[in-house]
């Protein structure tokens, strides 16, 4: 298995003095499904956003697919970003456009400037977008405005847009945090299934410990910007959970303490 992403001693200090990441090192192989867990403010989002350079890191280095991330600029940066799909907590669709147009945004990185501006997508791209929507059970909505969809449907459009990029890596920033439990399960199932079929590595930020344990091939636990756990879900003991969240596992389950 080849490593496609490598964090080498990465630190990030925001301009307001907050140290979001402290000497973080890990590497990601093709096809892995990694959950990053930790309390709010532990640096989960910073890790994800530094991979595609939405955030610049302060020290250390990130390598993606043979390139050094921090030196990428302009065209090279855009070419690197199109190999990294991203899925957001708030879906980040263009709500005034149709579902199909939103999915086709995934190929903008591969088009020349003018045809991207005009939205002249090729017929092959349109066919691929429609078949992706079909795979996600969304084909009948392809001409609906994105604003008319439910949360779970919006996230499926987000997944389609990201897969449309033919990415090698998928970054998911709290993909199910705004969803009800049943939609959340659908989305996690789809993410796992779609990335597994295409051998896309996937890094998911999660607040839901149970989802992390169920879906991941590997879990990274963060606390105050430091990696304090990196291993298989089966190695995740109650002690580890307590050191990540600063509280016992029972306290993390809502009403769990009373039930026992």
């Amino acid at each position, binding site marked *: 298995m080849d490593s496609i992403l490598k964090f080498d001693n990465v630190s990030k200090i925001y301009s307001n003095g907050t140290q979001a990441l402290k000497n973080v090192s890990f590497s990601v192989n093709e096809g892995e499904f990694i959950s990053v867990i930790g309390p709010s403010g532990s640096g989960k989002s910073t890790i994800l956003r530094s991979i595609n350079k939405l955030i610049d890191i302060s020290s250390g280095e990130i390598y993606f697919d043979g390139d050094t991330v921090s030196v990428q600029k302009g065209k090279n940066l855009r070419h690197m970003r199109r190999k990294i799909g991203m899925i957001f907590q708030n879906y980040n669709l*263009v*709500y005034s456009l149709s579902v199909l147009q939103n999915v086709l*945004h995934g190929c903008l*990185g591969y088009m020349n400037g003018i045809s991207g*501006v005009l939205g002249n997508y090729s017929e092959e791209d349109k066919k691929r977008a429609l078949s992706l929507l079909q795979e996600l059970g969304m084909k009948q909505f392809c001409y609906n405005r994105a604003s008319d969809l439910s949360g779970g449907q919006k996230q499926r459009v*987000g997944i389609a847009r990201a897969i449309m*990029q033919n990415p090698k890596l998928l970054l998911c920033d709290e993909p199910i945090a705004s969803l009800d439990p049943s939609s959340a399960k659908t989305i996690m199932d789809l993410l796992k299934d779609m990335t597994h079929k295409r051998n896309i590595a996937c890094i998911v930020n999660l607040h839901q410990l149970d989802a992390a344990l169920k879906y991941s091939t590997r879990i990274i636990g963060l606390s105050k910007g430091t990696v304090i756990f990196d291993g298989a879900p089966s190695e995740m003991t109650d002690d580890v959970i307590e050191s990540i969240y600063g509280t016992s596992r029972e306290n993390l389950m809502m009403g769990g303490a009373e039930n026992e």
Partner: protein
Amino acid sequence: MNKKIPVIAKNQKIVYTAFIIVAIILFVLTSLYTKFNIFTLLKNSDEFWSFIVNDFLPPALPKASSIGGVLSSVLVTLALAMASTTVAAILAFFVALFGSEKISPFPKLAKYVRAVATFLRNIPALVWAFILFSSLGIGTGVGFVALCITSFAFMVRAFVETMDDVSNDSVESLLTVGAGFPQRVAQAIVPSCLSGFLSWFLYCIEVNIRASTIVGMVGGGGVGLTLFSYIKGFQYDVALSIILLIALMIIVVDRITAMLRKELQK
């Protein structure tokens, strides 16, 4: 026993009383400073009313031969407002892209773009008109430029705020697919902000219909200049009809733009 129960908190009452006292003091001071006295106005009210009743009323139509000219001057005013707002809106759109930190490819310059726009906007169109008339002479062309400058500056600010409000999330997602700046503008900003842009544009047309009448009076042409020439010729009754015509024009335009803006918000 007979003590009244206060209905508002005591400290609130103090604030209100202080506010009224300050307002009265300010009124007295400013009246003294400007030597404006409401009582002279009341004392001279007979003169005022006789002026209104004898000179203004009843409204009279201009000579039949000049009715066509008056109506076409109304059209000139409308055209001046429309054309200047449209040109200003197109320019403002491109400049506004560089005035928003989140969108501009040169975020460090964004605040300077906004500062220039704020500066231009805070000089009223009338002042621009005077400056330009002194340097370029009188004519609708200069009125056009004067209106363009202020509405351009206003729309830059309004467009930047529309973009900051609406499209941050979708712009971020297009950043991650590897889209370039023009693509992000065309595929995320324009679709999400278009109705906001149009709404501000229509509002600007409303403002500019009024402003173009005023700018016209000082030499920009159109119905403002026609009105001014009747006033200068002491034909106040004809002037009144033109004032009513201007009011009608503004009301009609306001109604239409208000309706369109409401439609856009749906």
